[in-house]
């Protein structure tokens, strides 16, 4: 099988996820697709595997144009994709999940299917228990099952999206061995979407690097990490000078903190945040940054370890209690979580600010809202419903809703989707808070923002936190390595 992607375009609203990408894949080789957050790799792979229809461009298989209407279509043509969270049915037994979607006789002969599954698994080098329920399996085992399933259905091209996040070292080795065998012996094409440089180096024959929806390079391995990093990350402009507000006083201390969301394990983390400090968290999305932020906010329970805020152990405090104690959290979804569609700006301030008595003193909040509208330069009225505001103004509103008294401010994507001037303005407001003594932790998909705005930076990769570097001394290179798993 020989595959070409020709001039693939895919837009989501204004966002150009893929902006004219042309790639070629030859049988028997393992390809790496590299890129930082938002580079467009997952979108491209979903186009290839039939999940998205491209707006423009063609998929050419063995010199014939093809278009897919569904993932099942793509699989029939020999293309299969294994997602980070494999697409299976948690409540089914392994063997049932294996059979789901196959054509053939009405009745399922479970005995026969079990035999077939076990036999097929062993040819690929895996051992499976066909009777186990999917929801009792580890992520690595579920990936193996998907791999087996796709191969048994005749996939000649396998796409693996970040397959090593959340699986054990043994499972990883097993997976890599079988991938090498599949490419080398059986002539399959393997595409590994990853951000971990050492894994790409270890496994791949060729690497394509994407940046902002375009292909910026193709490298035949072996190549140095250095060369990959410099392709993945643009050389960023030098950080602008800015006064540091860091004080002696410690706002938050994490002691051997361990977190888990069932998919990845984070920690154990040890960290100290000072008053006036801005700490930026870099890394591929879903590597543990969000989990850490939510744990600090009291939205995720710690598995073990301690969270000490303002010298008090708040590990067991819930979100509302921490909020009263001066912790402020700004989520990344605006209308999904953060703002309430249908309510006015004033309503939001009534809810967010401390309340007195039973009856709402409308004038008081009206005034407060208008003050904040002025202060945060929100284009809208105090009576405007939040869904009537533009995205940027919703973001400003979220920021304005953070209580003034907050000592610890936790931000997810503080300026996502904003123009340069608004972003600059939002950071001036945040620096003002820092100057007043608040500690700030944020993460962003945008590496420039992290370097430009932070005092110190840590990177996450597969749930592990890197060493912490100071922002004015680090380089794109150093960060690129950290994000790539070279902690």
């Amino acid at each position, binding site marked *: 099988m020989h595959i070409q992607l020709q001039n693939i375009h895919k837009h989501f609203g204004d966002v150009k996820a893929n902006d004219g990408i042309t790639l070629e894949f030859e049988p028997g080789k393992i390809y790496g697709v590299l890129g930082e957050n938002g580079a467009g790799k997952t979108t491209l792979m979903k186009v290839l595997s039939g999940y998205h229809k491209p707006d423009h461009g063609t998929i050419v298989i063995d010199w014939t144009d093809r278009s897919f209407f569904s993932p099942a279509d793509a699989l029939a043509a020999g293309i299969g994709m294994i997602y980070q969270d494999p697409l299976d049915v948690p409540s089914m037994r392994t063997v049932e999940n294996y059979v789901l979607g196959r054509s053939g006789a009405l009745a399922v002969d479970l005995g026969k299917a079990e035999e077939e599954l076990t036999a097929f698994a062993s040819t690929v080098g895996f051992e499976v228990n066909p009777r186990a329920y999917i929801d009792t399996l580890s992520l690595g085992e579920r990936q193996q099952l998907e791999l087996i399933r796709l191969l048994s259905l005749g996939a000649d091209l396998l796409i693996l999206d970040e397959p090593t996040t959340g699986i054990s070292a043994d499972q990883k080795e097993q997976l890599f061995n079988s991938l090498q065998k599949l490419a080398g012996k059986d002539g399959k094409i393997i595409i590994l979407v990853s951000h971990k440089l050492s894994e790409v180096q270890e496994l791949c024959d060729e690497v394509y690097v994407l940046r902002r929806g375009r292909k910026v390079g193709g490298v035949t391995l072996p190549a140095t990490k250095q060369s990959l990093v410099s392709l993945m990350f643009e050389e960023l402009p030098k950080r602008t000078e800015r006064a540091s507000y860091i004080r002696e006083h410690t706002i938050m201390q994490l002691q051997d903190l361990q977190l888990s969301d069932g998919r990845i394990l984070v920690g154990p983390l040890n960290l100290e945040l000072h008053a006036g400090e801005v700490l930026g968290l870099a890394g591929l999305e879903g590597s543990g940054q969000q989990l850490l932020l939510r744990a600090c906010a009291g939205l995720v329970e710690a598995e073990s370890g301690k969270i000490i805020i303002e010298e008090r152990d708040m590990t067991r405090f819930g*979100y*509302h209690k921490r*909020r009263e104690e001066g912790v402020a*959290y700004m*989520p990344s979804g605006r*209308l*999904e*979580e*953060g*703002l*309430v*569609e*249908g*309510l006015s700006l004033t*309503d*939001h301030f*009534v*809810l*967010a600010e401390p*309340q007195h*008595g*039973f*009856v*709402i003193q*409308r004038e008081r909040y009206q005034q407060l809202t208008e003050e904040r509208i002025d202060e945060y330069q929100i284009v809208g009225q105090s009576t405007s419903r939040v869904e009537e505001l533009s995205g940027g103004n919703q973001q400003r509103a979220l920021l304005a*809703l953070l209580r003034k008294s907050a000592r610890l401010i936790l931000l997810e994507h503080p300026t996502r989707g904003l123009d340069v001037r608004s972003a600059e303005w939002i950071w001036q407001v945040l620096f003002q808070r820092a100057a007043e003594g608040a500690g700030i932790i944020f993460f962003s998909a945008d590496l420039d923002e992290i370097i430009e705005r932070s005092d110190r930076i840590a990177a996450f990769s597969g749930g592990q936190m890197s060493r912490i570097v100071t922002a004015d001394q680090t380089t794109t290179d150093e960060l690129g390595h950290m994000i790539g798993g070279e902690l």
Partner: protein
Amino acid sequence: MTGRAWLRRLWPLAPVLGALVITSGLLLLFGVSPFEGFGALLQGAFGTEAKVLSVAAFWVPLTLAAAGLVVAFTAGLWNIGVEGQIVMGAVASSWLALRFDAPRPILLVAEILVAMAAGALWAGVVAIFKTRGGVHEIFGGLALNNIAIIFTNYLISGPWQPPEGGTFRGTVPFPEKALFPLLGVSRLSPLSIALTLGALAAVYFILRGTYWGLKLDALGRNPKSAFLLGVSSEREMILAMMFCGALAGLGGSVRVLSWFDSLRQSISGGIGFLALLVVMLALFRVVLVPFVAFFFSAVLSGSISLQLRTQLHSSLGGILTSVMVLLVLLFGDYRQLGIFGSRGGKALADE
């Protein structure tokens, strides 16, 4: 105004029209002319003063329960258990009426308060099963409805059985002083009218002017965001249910102390379920509730006369109202239909 704009403005009437057409069809099917049928229905509702008073008397508990349901719906809760809450309110009032003696004003106030407490408690149980036990409020509510009805039957045929023997129909009539003062020979009491208007005002005020009302609104619209803005979901849910239960309980009290004069077998008679329909047709807005409830009350009372006049079953009124609610529910939002051009509804756009 363009024709299209007119159509849009008149669209809310379409479900009403649709429901009339469907019920007319049913009338024709049974050989009754729709004019005659609906005429009899109107006559039955408003023909005499006594009939108007009866419509108003039925309106009272219906409006009370519906007003409470507006609060529960605002918080995003399906309080189908409102029926049982009405029953428990009635039982609690009956208990005082049968067993206690006090000067009339004190007795009446006590009857009202104990009914509200019983309704609130019955609703609180559903809420706690929901927040702590993971039982959906629809199923918790249904179970408690049935238990309340069974409990009533037990009381009527057991401890509160009239001395002359088990008729299984109801308790002995309560003493005069335990009953609401009535208007003439009707079943309507000025007291219950006042209570209902008070309840409507209270609900309106709570939802418009208080922190609690705003919290419930936020919770009903987007629980995640509401939580992040500081709303404690569990507490507010339980309170919203209990508030609704208290008003439903009050409705139950009105049923035994002015509509009837004793505790009967089916003391609520489906008023709770009707109230759910009322709130849906009122688009979940408390200002519309009294009018929609009055419409329901008129249609249902009218259809009882219809049955006497034309021998047609009184369920015609129920069909008229429920078809109307169904049509409003399905097609009330013209944007979703895409028949008026412009922007299609959001839900369809992403299909």
